[in-house]
């Protein structure tokens, strides 16, 4: 190993901060950046309003039949108590924001919710499958406790109480999908869109 004098560093090119011309260039560049940023912000504000419009609704409409992953309609007399099925609006199979979880309640179980007495049908209840924390599909169902659990951060929703969060980082219940039975065919249909915008929260969600 050797030891020697550290050489004095040559000054960095362009002179120091006392260089007036350089400072002016910096100020101009800063002003230019501000103009660009202001333009970008204006565009972002408009884009956000449009995005919020898309986020606030899904493809569910009154009378649209529920279909499973294979595209088959769900009969109102099918399924066993405790069964859970992922459903989509007919014609929109695979639409990310429209996915819903259909739960067949056990005998004597009812979902309590103000103004939503008509929202269950034949012992079925349906909620949005997108977690209201960060949007992961709430894929785990604990039958004994009647709770849906999100695999990402373990947000837990009580199916019998309007899917309100009972544990974990979610703050809002899973939006509920109103259900009805199509008298003619005995299949489950939606009564309208979800009770609230689905998925994670965003600035203008409550508009």
């Amino acid at each position, binding site marked *: 190993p050797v*030891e020697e004098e550290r050489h004095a560093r*040559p000054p960095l090119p362009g002179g120091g901060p006392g260089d007036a011309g350089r400072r002016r260039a910096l100020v101009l560049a800063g002003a230019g950046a501000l103009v660009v940023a202001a333009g970008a912000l204006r565009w972002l504000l408009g884009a956000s309003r449009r995005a919020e419009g898309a986020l606030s609704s899904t493809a569910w409409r009154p009378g649209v039949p529920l279909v499973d992953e294979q595209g088959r309609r769900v009969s109102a007399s099918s399924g066993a108590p405790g069964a859970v099925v992922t459903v989509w609006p007919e014609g929109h199979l695979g639409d*990310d924001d429209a996915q819903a979880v259909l739960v067949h309640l056990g005998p004597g179980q009812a979902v309590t919710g103000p103004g939503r007495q008509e929202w269950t049908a034949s012992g079925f209840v349906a909620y949005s499958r997108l977690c209201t924390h960060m949007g992961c599909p709430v894929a785990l169902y604990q039958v004994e406790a009647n709770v849906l659990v999100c695999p990402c951060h373990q947000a837990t929703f009580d199916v019998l109480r309007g899917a309100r969060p009972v544990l974990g980082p979610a703050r809002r219940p899973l939006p509920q999908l109103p259900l009805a039975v199509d008298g003619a065919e005995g299949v489950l249909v939606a009564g309208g869109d979800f009770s609230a915008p689905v998925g994670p929260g965003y600035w203008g969600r409550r508009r």
Partner: protein
Amino acid sequence: MARRAMATAGRKVFPDHWSFLLGEIAAYSLVVLFGTGIALAFVFDASDARVVYDGDYEPLAGVEMSRAYRSVVDLSLGGTAGLALRQTHHWAALVFVGAIALHACRVFFTGAFRRPRRLNWSIGVTLLALALLTGFAGVALPDDVLGGTGARIGYASVLSVPVVGPGLAFWVFGGEFPGAQMVNRLWLFHVFVLPLAIAGAFGSHLWLLWRQTHTQMPGPWRRDRSIAGDRLWPRHLARTSALFAVVVAVLGALGATVQVNPVWLHGPFDEGAATVPAGPDWFLMWIEGALRIVPAVGVELGSFEVPSPFFVGVALPLAFFALLYAWPLIEERATGDRAEHHTLERPADRPVRAALGSTALSVLAVLGLAANHDYLGSVLGVSIEDMTAAFRLLLVVVPPSVGAVVFVLARQRSGARRPAGARRRAPAA
């Protein structure tokens, strides 16, 4: 002329300490990342177009997937070292960020970020942030359930930004999740935008290091005016070349023998799919853990809201990095030391800095562990509810305790090093 420049360069002196190898390990991991990444780019199909699997892997027969996913499955199970290539790339990323983190710790605890190296510290912090982003984008490229779920978390984080979140999220993803051409967009970030930024930042990092010369550990005969070590030619170059070979060998061995991210087991990403356990690579677990255990705190302002993912998924990481960027200025304010330094300090010479740094590291460690609290709960037979409560307790109790212990130990150690009978200098705090 070029010969003289090379001769001058060859005489440059590089101080020698084992901890100085950490930065080099990071650099060589980056080289492996570029090399394996370029090789992967030839076989990866960055397309979201849907296909039906008709290859040899039975469990996926007839399953619909994106071309991206299929190309990764074919590469992994195809047989000609494709899996080794993929896994070497992933291991190199894990080691890259680990080496940067350790190197940053060395720089922090020895005070190497002080003048004239404050700018280079900022470049280093930027490199860390870029590495995290690049890793996050990379895991989503195979378009499997785990990667796609990670992309969802990223989407929800951007969405949660006040006022402009929805516009920003739709811009990044090309619409409402999963957006238009998600894999392709992430691929462009992971392969062009971010690597270019990393290359530029890293080049500046090395250039500044070269100009300013490397710092050195204190010793009885070392002063700020002098530099002691080995010349670039031949000793230092030989040593660093050997390290390069070792890094390549170790990463290659890991990639060839230790499984990481077996995407064919996860299944292709599809809107309804979810997987348990779900979690990111180790270097993002501090954010994931925070998302799990920090109580949901959202803010409602009339018909507007700032949802909780913003505070934990966006504001927390931004605050952490802001603290990192600001640290040299904070310490300068606190100590009043505006002199240039080329000699490092022993970590114990600065008990307050050592304690604060250890506290921050233990916060990251607790949060990182909390990212696996569902898995830990199932292994220990403890409910999620209790695991969450336990980790919240740990988060409040462990970091201050660690800080206090480190402070006391450092005080004792730096006290013991002073020769008996010497006059006390100004307290090193």
